[in-house]
């Protein structure tokens, strides 16, 4: 069993921010590349376009404020212990980038590799978990199967009593997994992109596309038309609102996904715990708040809010698994809009429109993929060919039937 250094203990002071983060420029009339959406994916793509490919004549358009969508609404879990080869490849590529991201960005992102436990509560959970651990190992990803006693050692507050309604039968453990501070990640990427001369245009909503035949030539926005050699959609839950403007159909549905935090608490929870069966995932952030989430709300929704009974259920699960949480207090709840594909894997690739690139369908996995996706998407934009990490995620899989079904045996997909 591996243990890891807890680089930043919960309760530590937050670092000072940079004095300057980004300009607020007026949009130019034309760019080589226009990225729609200044969330983590859009900003990371901009950064790697400049850094890896020297492409700097880039605008990132944001209808609201940068990093204000799912980027600032997720529970910041970073891991790569996915079941299928295709998934673990992109997430592991991403995790490796996370490990050096703070230096790359020159900005504190509070990346803390405190490990993640995925608990198993049924015999089938155990089978699925072992299957995933063994696949991870063969793919070069750190993964272990822990007994309930070993789970208790990693996270002493987990209730491993066999009297539990669904007792903990063990867990998968990825020591290199962890959490980061989502806002700082967005700001760090934005700052680097801005430094490279990339224009981040906030409060600028795309209202349409300009096309010439099957080629994209630009976007129409609330701040005027902007011509573009290439257009990249990084709009997560609102992607289909954009693709509908082009009559392009993609198999994603937008759902509310809720999360919540407690007040600040002295350190009690040293790792990240996820349970699919009892259904909650929880970590303790750097300042001490418990950060928690569960499943998506079932219906389509863009309202950035969900139903409270989902949260009540999650609280029941939390207190069941962590009895010491009983008198922690729910301080704030909120929701993002996640774009979900039928197989719980993303859609990344070229489109029938020349110069238009698609990146969506990340569901609950978007945050952890941020650097890896940005890297790979920048590669595709620069070379007009998918990076190997994202090549399997094209739309074609829905026609052939070669889905990458992370619902089935991958534990929680968050």
């Amino acid at each position, binding site marked *: 069993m591996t243990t890891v250094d807890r680089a930043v203990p919960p309760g530590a002071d937050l670092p000072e921010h940079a004095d300057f983060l980004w300009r607020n420029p007026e949009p130019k009339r034309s760019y080589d590349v226009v990225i729609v959406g200044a969330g983590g994916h859009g900003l990371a793509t901009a950064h790697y376009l400049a850094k890896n490919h020297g492409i700097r004549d880039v605008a990132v358009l944001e209808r609201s404020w940068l990093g204000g969508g799912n980027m600032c609404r997720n529970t910041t879990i970073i891991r790569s212990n996915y079941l299928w080869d295709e998934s673990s490849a992109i997430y592991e590529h991403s995790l490796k980038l996370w490990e050096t991201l703070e230096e790359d960005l020159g900005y504190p992102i509070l990346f803390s590799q405190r490990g993640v436990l995925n608990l198993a509560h049924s015999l089938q959970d155990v089978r699925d978990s072992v*299957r995933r651990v063994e696949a991870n190992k063969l793919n070069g990803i750190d993964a272990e199967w822990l007994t309930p006693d070993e789970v208790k050692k990693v996270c002493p507050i987990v209730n491993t009593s066999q009297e539990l309604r669904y007792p903990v039968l063990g867990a998968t453990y990825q020591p290199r997994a962890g959490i980061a501070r989502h806002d700082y990640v967005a700001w760090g990427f934005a700052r680097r992109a801005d430094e490279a001369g990339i224009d981040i245009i906030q409060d600028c909503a795309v209202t349409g596309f300009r096309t010439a035949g099957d080629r994209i030539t630009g976007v129409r926005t609330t701040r005027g038309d902007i011509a573009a050699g290439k257009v990249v959609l990084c709009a997560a839950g609102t992607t289909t609102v954009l693709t509908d403007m082009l009559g392009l159909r993609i198999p994603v549905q937008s759902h509310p996904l809720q999360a919540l935090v407690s*007040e600040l608490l002295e350190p009690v929870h040293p790792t990240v715990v996820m349970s699919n069966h009892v259904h909650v995932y929880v970590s303790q952030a750097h300042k001490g708040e418990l950060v928690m989430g569960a499943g998506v709300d079932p219906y389509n929704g863009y309202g950035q809010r969900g139903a409270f009974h989902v949260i009540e259920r999650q609280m029941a699960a939390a207190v069941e698994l962590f009895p010491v949480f009983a008198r922690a207090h729910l301080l704030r709840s909120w929701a993002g809009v996640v774009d979900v594909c039928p197989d719980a894997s993303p859609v990344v690739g070229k489109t029938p429109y020349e110069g238009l690139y698609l990146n969506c369908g990340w569901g609950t996995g978007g945050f952890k993929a941020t650097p890896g996706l940005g890297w790979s998407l920048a590669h595709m934009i620069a070379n007009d060919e998918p990076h190997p990490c994202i090549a399997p995620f094209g739309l074609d899989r829905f026609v052939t039937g070669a889905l990458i079904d992370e619902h089935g045996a991958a534990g929680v997909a968050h």
Partner: protein
Amino acid sequence: MNALRLPAGGRIDRSTTYEFTFNGQRLTGHPGDTLASALLAHGIHRTGTSIKLGRPRGIAAAWAEDPNGLIQIEEPFPEPMLLATTVELTDGLTARGIPGQGRLADVPDSARYDARHSHADLLVIGAGPTGLCAALTAARAGARVVLVDEQSEAGGYLLGSTDRIDGGPALDWVAAATAELAGFADVLHLQRTTAFGHFDDGFVLALERRTDHLGTPTHVLGGETAPPHKSRQRVWRIRARHVLVAAGAHERPVVFSDNDRPGIMLAGGARTYLHRYGVLAGRDVVVFTTNDSAYAAAVDLADAGARVHAVVDARAATPAAWVQKCVRRGIPVRAGRLVTGTEGVERITAVAVAGERIPCDLLLVSGGWNPAVHLFSQAGGTLRYDGGLGAFVPGEERDGVSVAGGAAGVAELGGCLADGRRAAEGALGGLGFVPVDSPSPVAEAHVDGQPSLVLWRVADGDQRTQFVDLQRDATVADIACAIGAGMRTVEHVKRYTTIGTAHDQGKTSGVLASGIAAELLGRPVGELGTTTFRPPYTPVAFAALAGRDRGSLFDPERTTAVHAWHVARGAVWEDVGQWKRPRYYPLPGEDMEAAVLRECAAVRGGVGILDGSTLGKIDVQGPDAAEFLNRLYTNMIATLKVGSVRYGVMCGADGMVIDDGTVLRLAGDRFLVYTTTGGAAAVLEWMEEWLQTEWPDLRVYLTSVTEQWATFPVVGPRSRDVIGTVFPDVDVSNAAFPFMTWRDTVLGSNRSGHDASTPRSARGGRPAPDQDVPVRLARVSFSGELAYEVNVDSWYARAVWERLVAAGERHGITPYGTETMHVLRAEKAYPIVGQDTDGTVTPHDLGMSWAVSKKKPFFVGKRSFHRADNQRADRKQLVALLPVDRNLFLPEGSQVIEGPSVPEPPIPMLGHVTSSYRSAALERTFALALVKAGRTRIGETVHVPVAGALVPVEVAEPVVFDPEGARRDG
């Protein structure tokens, strides 16, 4: 000891004295006190230090808006991060100030939490003057009313005032109003109940605090104690046709240099401590205000004996009537002046006002009032900036929601009373009630004054000590820094500075931050907006939200009718969905392996009995039932003869296996469908979906009969003897009762005529002891052995089970659990959906092409079989794996690779082990696995990494035992 407790006044019970401990100091107080009022009575303002800068901090308000005053309760049970202002004092309470992080108990909380539902015509949130008036108006009109209020008693703002209504003290009117409300049968009035979340369609969640104020039995000196079974907190789930938010307003401070010292307090708070608790918050007082409301605090504190050294009014035009009152009391009023700084370390000692230094021990501040719009905003109500109030107010009308009184920006008492009545009457009209004529309460004449000045901050001095969010130690300098860094929105500023994210969720700091950011950016506040209000309004304990859904109630435990027998027999359990199923029945000294080997051998060598009652059962009836099932199963069902049984597979539209089981044809128009235990509910919903949404023309009716039928497979070569003994009426020979057929019979006397398919309830309850028990027998086998499945009404299940066991005794009948069932079925390669499949597996992959009809033009999933990926030669197929080492056990989930060497990652995987067991019959281990092109690899050797080693295994035909099927007829 209570040096600052006035000799009389307040709503505390002076006849009883409580002892409590704060920061290690033993202190006293009275019933009716909050922890904060009891501390202030001792002259204690400072509760702790701030989170980042370690500056002393104290009590700064009298209720939930306090951004300071954070405490940790240690006794009677640790609870983190509460406000001293909202904790009711109890005897023996032990608490301490904390710098912003609480401590969780390290033992489980034994308190009980629960929830109740309530339905109302009108829900009124807040029992202040507005809410009481509204509730009375609605109750008198005959409406069903729920009135909730977060304080220990009704009155709201009036509890901290000297206001008068109808010529008498306002609290007399409050008492009369609550007494009148108590007389209405359809009024639910709850104090200590905080509405914390407002959702769609009039749904409001409120938390009732039921026992904390009673203390623990050992500590209570007199009066009521909390019975141990009483829930500590209760979540009220209120569904109201109309919601009226009458939550009042929160006073807002002004930001100035060193505005965070203990002894700096909101003016209204000090007034509340005076009138409600009989406590002087200080002896030497300075008041700093931008509006008229703080004058009342100056006057009241002076009247109570405090020395009020100045009222510093930021406005040049001061309110004449109030100034006159001050002059009469010798209180100087400094018009058009600002507080520019303070002195003191542990407690404020002086205030700087434009170069003048005024010594004091209490600085009262009022920067105006923020309407408490949280609950309106949570439900999606938009807000509008009101430049006159310097605050955000409800910006639109919404169906079923109204806001009245202080929460709508109404400032004075008369207006609130009228607004409450108006809002209630407006709502009643829409609900079909007619307001009755009744006199309106009359407030004493309002003191005319001057308009408020909107002032966010006093710029003089060091921005780094001008605190906007005290709990987060966030200052004007931090806002300036955020803007300097490029941030232009309130959301970014909030995230950069952390303003508004602390325990109080920005109740005082939110609007200030918007105002100051707008000022620094040179933009209007209204354009910049404010951050979104999110549930909960005030923090709610996890356990309260979990309620009773804990332990065995976390998820219902489903047990079969024979459960108690299994318990008595010492079964070890497996959770299958919500069901508790016996996994195996160990004999003394046996571990699972020994028990399962014994059970397997007993079944294959003699006879065993399994409780299979958890299998899903669906009664499918109607003239088109055969056609309906034909469309859902991959194989042909319509040709099934009455009296026969067929195994069927169901696929999703994507062609992947979703369930399987047997189908009994009971009649031309009636089938009994068995599903997997875990899939029962989903399959019924799946059937209903197709029937209702795609084939409404089919005349079919579906009924779940899972609980109605108990199912006991009696399995093994001696099963015929057992069945023949128990059911002498039945000819159990192969010829008369062949495989895959069923027969109805009776148990008991030999009278016949009962229709086994009629449930007990339809027969009017339990038959007399001499009556027959209808039983259905089916020759199906999930083990390859001769087997009879005994189906009986659950009511008689235990008796029938015991008859079977008794009859089997001489054959050594052995009860067996799911583990043995799995071994036996795996030896025959019968797949378990969800274990040997994972949503990516077709019937063909399972080697069950025989169960996929080639004749039927349509069945669900058929089209998907023709897609490119389904045609791949290297699809994963179900095969058996036989470890070369016959004793080596492959863990389920193990991955299969080519081997025999291990290359560098990523290593290509061929598939994985889905099921793995020790076979008593084969005297070896074996496994089932999904392996790429598995069927073409039969006979080859592949490898499985197991615990760091690479294990060679032989790929084999999936059926490893009795491949000829010679045993099923006995």
